């Protein structure tokens, strides 16, 4: 009696267990569609996380801080926004920069990035996560990079199919061209702007494909976000009209296009004009006229279409067409001509004109030419930033041309124009990256699809062959297929393995590039010491905090414009010029002061109320981005406004030297003196003479520097930043 229940109870759990296993097994055997969905969602989730964590190298190696120069300004404004609220921020006049002019910050910045970070900060605070605003700022860019991969997936799905979308998302998650401007700590406009750019394009292409008003409204909002985030919105407002024009010219005019473009243009333009920095440019600036022109052209096309529908007679319509088209074109050209001639429509500004004519900036606007990111791109940069995508790009173009539709025409235009601009300016590789990733993804996806279908058909055909009839034709055909198939299958497998190998090398390259080249904060420098250990140079922050703690609160600091943002953000002192570079004459004044002899420079500094001068010097550490290397640009910019400064005075036979053979004006100008003060007593390297400049690799010419109107206030531990105090005028009696 006791055993039986025991036995039955022992049996029961076992049978229950097997039942349970059978049940779970049946549950796990999903249908193909669900399996595919699971794979897709998992892949997207992994890509999302990957895009975030690959950008965290510098946070792990150094600390969570803001990099470079521009992000410090963005950080300072975000801090102000979170402390004082939106109304104060929108109407902020800053008297701490561009002394004595000040800067209307509310009206001269793109608020998208700051408002985004502030919103994230307030949301996290509301959910009672006590985060500091700096952490939010540092991690904003990687977060938006992850969001960009999602939008890329949707965009790829719209253009080609979901497989291409997945590949595009994976490619753009690790592509160095995008990572370079969106690492953790690079709190700059582009981090958010690329997300907005892709979102606008995706929503617009979706609107053209479906013709619904809701999608065009969405794209207008995305365009508004883009305008609020970055000055590169000019690219959108010119690419979309160009795309519409191409569609019109190739005969693809349709109602959907009409609805999509009109709604997006009107609403987008209205929304964009809410940003004070943009203002009325959409109706007044030459760069935006293309959009307006295409808008009127669309109305003409609609009108013609309607007349065609009404008339129903081909001949009358042809003559009517000719008259209307000539009228419309002449009226448009006349309006444009009158607008430009009378000056109402301003011509293309120098920044964007130099994209069309790359030699323009060098001759006319030295400040734009001096920025290293504005130089033309070398081939090595392309290879560095794109790797295998560079040759997948033409392959993808071929696939796009094979299957032309409204969406693929768009991605073709985007890819070609952005590649042209990327060739003109290094910084614009960033804008080309999404297009290159998408087009390469099309190539990869289509090729892999063909290859795998080749592998799959081989296993199918013998079955169908045997199922079908036994006629001789069929048999011979089957035999022929059987013969060529082994080669096909092997070839396909080999090619697939090759493709996977290439993609694996791409991933390795991207991670290496991110780790080595794009994760340096630029404000903290690192080098290898004598025994292989890592040496950190934290001189910049040391100097700025010295300024913050040891100078009077209303002290004014003169330095070259590169460091302006950092000084105001970390040193909390007033600066004369900063990275905004909106006033060329002011910068030229500083440049003139730096390149003059000490007495003249003292006069200029008195007129600007300067209390301290800050220079960056790399002679002791071998740091090559110091002010002596940038000095020629100071001379050029100063000389552009004040003809008394002539560049040949500082060169010897066209050569820039700081050693004994240097020009006498060079050896005695203020910048030279401030950089090399007391340097002649220093031994920097074993076996080299005193005063050996490690950055230039020469022994300096003027070792005995005496300062008359300034005195040394502070030099950082590795001599990278040197601060001098301007002496007040001596007593007259």
């Amino acid at each position: 009696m006791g055993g039986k229940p025991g036995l039955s109870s022992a049996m029961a759990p076992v049978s229950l267990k097997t039942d349970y296993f059978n049940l779970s097994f049946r549950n796990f055997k999903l249908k193909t569609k669900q399996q595919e969905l699971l794979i897709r969602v998992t892949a997207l989730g992994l890509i999302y996380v990957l895009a975030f964590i690959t950008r965290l190298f510098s946070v792990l190696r150094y600390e969570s801080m803001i990099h470079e120069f521009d992000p410090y300004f963005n950080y300072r404004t975000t801090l102000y926004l979170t402390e004082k609220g939106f109304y104060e921020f929108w109407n902020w006049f800053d008297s701490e920069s561009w002394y004595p002019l000040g800067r209307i910050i509310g009206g001269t910045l793109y608020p998208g990035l700051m408002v985004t970070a502030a919103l994230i900060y307030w949301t996290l605070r509301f959910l009672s996560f006590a985060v500091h605003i700096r952490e939010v700022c540092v991690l904003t860019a990687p977060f938006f990079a992850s969001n960009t991969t999602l939008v890329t997936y949707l965009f790829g799905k719209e253009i080609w199919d979901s497989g291409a979308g997945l590949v595009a998302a994976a490619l753009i998650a690790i592509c160095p061209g995008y990572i370079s401007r969106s690492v953790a700590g690079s709190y700059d406009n582009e981090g958010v702007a690329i997300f907005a750019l892709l979102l606008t394009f995706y929503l617009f292409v979706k609107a053209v494909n479906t013709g619904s008003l809701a999608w065009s409204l969405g794209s207008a909002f995305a365009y508004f976000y883009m305008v609020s985030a970055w000055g590169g919105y000019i690219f959108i407002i010119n690419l979309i009209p160009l795309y519409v024009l191409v569609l019109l010219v190739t005969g693809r005019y349709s109602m959907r296009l009409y609805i999509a473009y009109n709604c997006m243009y009107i609403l987008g333009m209205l929304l964009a004009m809410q940003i004070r920095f943009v203002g009325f440019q959409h109706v007044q600036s030459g760069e935006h006229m293309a959009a307006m022109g295409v808008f009127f052209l669309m109305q003409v096309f609609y009108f013609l279409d309607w007349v065609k529908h009404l008339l129903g007679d081909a001949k009358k319509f042809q003559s009517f067409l000719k008259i209307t088209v000539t009228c419309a074109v002449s009226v448009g050209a006349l309006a444009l001509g009158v607008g430009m001639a009378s000056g109402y429509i301003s011509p293309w500004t120098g920044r964007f004109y130099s994209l069309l004519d790359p030699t323009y900036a060098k001759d006319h606007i030295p400040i734009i030419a001096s920025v290293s990111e504005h130089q033309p791109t070398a081939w090595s940069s392309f290879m560095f930033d794109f790797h295998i995508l560079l040759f997948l790009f033409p392959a993808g173009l071929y696939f796009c041309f094979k299957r032309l539709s409204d969406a693929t025409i768009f991605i073709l235009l985007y890819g070609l124009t952005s590649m042209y601009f990327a060739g003109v300016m290094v910084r614009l590789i960033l804008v080309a990256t999404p297009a290159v990733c998408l087009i390469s993804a099309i190539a990869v996806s289509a090729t892999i699809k063909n290859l795998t279908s080749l592998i799959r058909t081989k296993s199918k055909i013998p079955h169908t062959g045997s199922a079908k009839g036994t006629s001789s034709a069929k048999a011979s055909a089957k035999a022929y297929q059987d013969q060529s198939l082994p080669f096909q299958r092997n070839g396909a497998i080999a090619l697939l393995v090759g493709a996977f190998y290439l993609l694996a090398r791409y991933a390795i390259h991207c991670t290496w590039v991110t780790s080595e080249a794009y994760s340096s904060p630029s404000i903290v420098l690192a080098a290898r010491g004598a025994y292989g250990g890592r040496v950190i140079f934290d001189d910049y922050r040391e100097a700025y905090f010295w300024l913050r703690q040891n100078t009077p609160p209303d002290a004014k600091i003169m330095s070259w414009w590169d460091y302006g943002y950092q000084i105001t953000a970390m040193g909390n002192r007033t600066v004369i010029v900063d990275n905004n570079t909106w006033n060329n004459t002011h910068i030229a004044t500083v440049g003139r002061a730096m390149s003059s002899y000490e007495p003249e420079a003292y006069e200029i500094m008195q007129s600007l109320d300067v209390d301290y001068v800050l220079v960056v010097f790399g002679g002791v550490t071998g740091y090559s981005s110091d002010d002596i290397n940038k000095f020629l640009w100071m001379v050029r910019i100063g000389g552009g406004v004040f003809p008394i400064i002539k560049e040949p005075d500082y060169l010897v036979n066209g050569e820039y030297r700081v050693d004994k053979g240097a020009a006498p004006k060079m050896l005695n100008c203020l910048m030279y003196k401030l950089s090399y003060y007391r340097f002649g007593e220093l031994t920097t390297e074993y076996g080299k003479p005193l005063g050996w400049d490690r950055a230039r690799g020469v022994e300096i010419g003027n070792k005995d520097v005496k300062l008359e109107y300034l005195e040394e206030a502070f030099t950082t531990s590795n001599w990278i930043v040197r601060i001098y105090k301007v002496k007040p005028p001596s007593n007259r009696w």
Partner: protein
Amino acid sequence: MARSSSSSSSTAKDAQALIQSLRSAYAATPTNLKVVYMAIVGSFPFNSFLSGVLSCVGTAVIAVCLRIQVNKENKEFKDLAPERAFADFVLCNLVLHLVIMNFLG
């Protein structure tokens, strides 16, 4: 405008399309009047002038889009429900007028 009325008379559509065609005719005329008025008065303040002009242009354009979507003769919009088209129209107009009100200053 004539197209919509011809289609409505030929296919005996409901009165909605007729009302919309009238409304679009109404929406188009103020633009010209407003431009003439502004040309007389002068364009200061510019943002108010722009918002007035663009409000008229915007409403006209969106109304045209609605008519296109609702019109049964257009093959491309066969499977778009008229209620959805009207909802889109209302939404776009709402956004347009909110922005105009902000822009008026």
